[in-house]
């Protein structure tokens, strides 16, 4: 008897719980619309709070909640959420291939000059970073471009009486001079494969012949076995003596620390480093120059790419409000705030950064630039050009692969999926 009564009590409890759970959410309607905004920039929380405040001041009735995730986990978290029909209203999107997969799956709202008038001002090359090659539509408003060049410590250069080099040989001599004085000439290491791709992005275009080779290989008119490409890889190896001792164990954060703490005098890196360097060492005086080519006249390419964009989730329940926020993100006002607050080059046309180093970087890029090859052209399917290049460069710098083998491996890997290479 007691047992059955106990059981009945249990059942009643369970029934009550079920009712309570069912009645829980959905009570009360909010007067304000809250937009959620996902990002991988955990380090920029404060800056985004300011941007959002500026938007909210002009758009009463809309609030925006900025939710950043860990950089390396963001893609997976976002893809899983979108797949499940959830996710944020506003999505920070990777560029090129990372964006394209989400757009092709129908998770994003296509944007054009009709819905986002600001987009009309963006140059075509920049919009490529947010365009699905499949349907030719744009799915995001680019937020930053990044440039790759040499960032150097002006204090050390002045102290040793060193000058910006005009040729590759002068660049190597500069390295030797710095090494003789006990400095690490180049902070670049190899533990994180992707930093090798950045090194490649700063150096290789000078030796494979800039845009001419890039256009040809993207169009499938030549292959990566092209002697120009192999030559560029071989030239990269000439930097090895000027990289840190045990550079294969030097990770990205180590590189940043070495440069910021003035152990290293130069680093081939992206424009996104400036903000971090200044946070790590407010007294740092920086200068920039493009990696020079063999002759003073034929080099000096700066690698350029679109960093990412902002888009709208197709499953968003507040598309109209989201569009208003996106229009704000495409405005010159936002571009200026972005550049000044984050010390990164804004992708919005006409924005002049106040930061002198940043302005100098953009001036260099305007003079001579080449696309960051693997990201712009070959990061759409697996094995991506980036994966192949990063791992193979680790192999090459560890003497496991020759430049010829690296080129052949990249070509064979890409030919698995890159249509122009399959003809």
């Amino acid at each position, binding site marked *: *008897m*007691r*047992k*059955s009564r106990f*059981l009945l009590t*249990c059942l009643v409890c369970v029934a009550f719980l079920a009712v309570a759970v069912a009645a829980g959410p959905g009570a009360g309607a909010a007067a304000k619309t809250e937009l959620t905004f996902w990002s991988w920039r955990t380090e920029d929380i404060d800056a985004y709070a300011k941007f959002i405040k500026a938007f909210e001041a002009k758009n009463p009735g809309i609030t925006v909640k900025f939710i950043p995730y860990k950089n*390396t*986990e963001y*893609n*997976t978290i976002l*893809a899983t959420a*979108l*797949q499940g029909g959830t996710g944020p209203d506003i999505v920070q999107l*990777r*560029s*090129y*291939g*990372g*964006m*394209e*997969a*989400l757009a*092709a*799956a*129908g998770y994003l709202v296509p944007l054009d000059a009709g819905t986002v008038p600001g987009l009309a001002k963006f140059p075509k090359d920049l919009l490529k970073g947010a365009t699905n090659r499949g349907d030719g539509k744009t799915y995001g408003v680019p937020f930053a471009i990044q440039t790759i060049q040499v960032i150097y410590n002006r204090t050390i250069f002045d102290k040793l009486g060193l000058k910006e080099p005009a040729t590759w040989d002068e660049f190597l001599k500069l390295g030797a001079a710095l090494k003789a004085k006990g400095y690490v000439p180049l902070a670049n*290491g*190899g*533990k*994180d*494969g*992707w930093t090798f*791709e950045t090194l490649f992005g700063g150096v290789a275009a000078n030796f494979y012949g800039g845009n001419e080779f890039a256009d040809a290989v993207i169009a499938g008119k030549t292959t990566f076995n092209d002697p120009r490409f192999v030559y560029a890889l071989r030239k990269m190896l000439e930097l090895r003596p000027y990289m*840190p*001792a*045990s*550079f*294969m*164990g*030097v*990770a990205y954060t*180590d590189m940043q*620390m*070495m440069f910021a703490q003035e152990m290293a005098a130069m680093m081939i890196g992206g424009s996104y480093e400036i903000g971090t360097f200044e946070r790590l060492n407010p007294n740092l005086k920086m200068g920039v120059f493009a990696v020079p080519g063999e002759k003073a006249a034929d080099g000096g390419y700066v690698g350029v790419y679109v960093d990412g964009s902002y888009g709208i989730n197709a499953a968003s329940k507040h598309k109209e409000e989201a569009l208003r926020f996106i229009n704000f993100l495409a405005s010159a006002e936002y571009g200026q705030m972005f550049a000044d607050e984050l010390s990164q080059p804004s992708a919005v046309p006409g924005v002049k950064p106040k930061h002198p180093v940043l302005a100098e970087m953009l001036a260099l890029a305007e003079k001579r630039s080449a696309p960051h090859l693997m990201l712009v052209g070959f*990061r*759409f399917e*697996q*094995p*991506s050009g*980036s*994966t192949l290049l*990063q*791992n193979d460069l*680790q*192999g090459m710098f*560890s003497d*496991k*692969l020759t430049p010829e083998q690296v080129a052949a491996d990249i070509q*064979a*890997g890409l030919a*698995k999926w890159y249509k122009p290479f399959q003809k």
Partner: protein
Amino acid sequence: MDGRHIQPDFGGINVLDRLFRRRIYWLFLAPALIVYTVFMVYPLLSSFGYSFFRWNGYIREGFAGLANYSKVLFESPYSERLIGALKHNVMFFTATFAIQTTFGLFLAVMLNRGGRFLKACQVAYFAPYTLSMVVVGFLWLLLLNPTWGQVNKILAAIGLGRFARPWLGDTATALHTIVLVNAWRWLGFPITVYLAGLQGIPEELHEVARVDGATPWQVFRSVTLPLLAPTIGMVSILTFIYDFNAFEQIFVMQGSSGSPFYSTDVLGTFFYRTAFGDSTTGGEVGQVGLGSAIAVLMFLVVCVASIIGVRLTRRQEVEM
């Protein structure tokens, strides 16, 4: 209260009562069963299902039959990566197994002698096991850092500076270093289980052997070891399962690309970057079908090897 005494008074309810009692175990099983089904059985079956389809990014397209499997098994670069990763898993397990059944067992036998000092040692050996793998990974990442880490500094201080190297960045040493870091954390577990096994062996058996004039080594070899064999077998199977599913430590220390140059790539990292895209390259598309196929292959390897292992251990027990 005894149900039989109440029977005459509450006959009607008694039928219900009996029905409940016969089926009641379902009620107690239900919570665990539901959780297990939702979080284990369903994902397992669905990834099994995924592996037979073609995928375009995150959209499922047509039925692919065994195409994903043949791609992973026979098509470059996947086949090379698969074989490379499998070799590294085998190496990971063999080295860990060797360390725990020699050094680990030796420590367990020493600790079994008792004493307050040894008790403290036991705690010290077990402590790393209580740390999260992620914490251990970061800790050793700092210690092994070639620029600021203590390991190379200590080597230099004791005059062995020429052995200093980028432990985790050198293709020749990276995997070995990872194995040792893993052993540092893991060893506390086998030692503790061995100790429990050793304490379960009746002291009289050792006594008898000693009275018969056996040397300590003979006692260990002919009495302790055979009686401990089932324990060693079980721990080895657990180690095998753990090592073939290894992922966190390598992901934390080397990223998902098996850096440098695939020298630390294991099935876990190979699966992760194929299924979800390589997070270290930023923005690569995942291949759900291929990833699922790798996951199923991993499951098969671990499952078959574990069944064989358990059978062998049981047979050993029966023989004794």
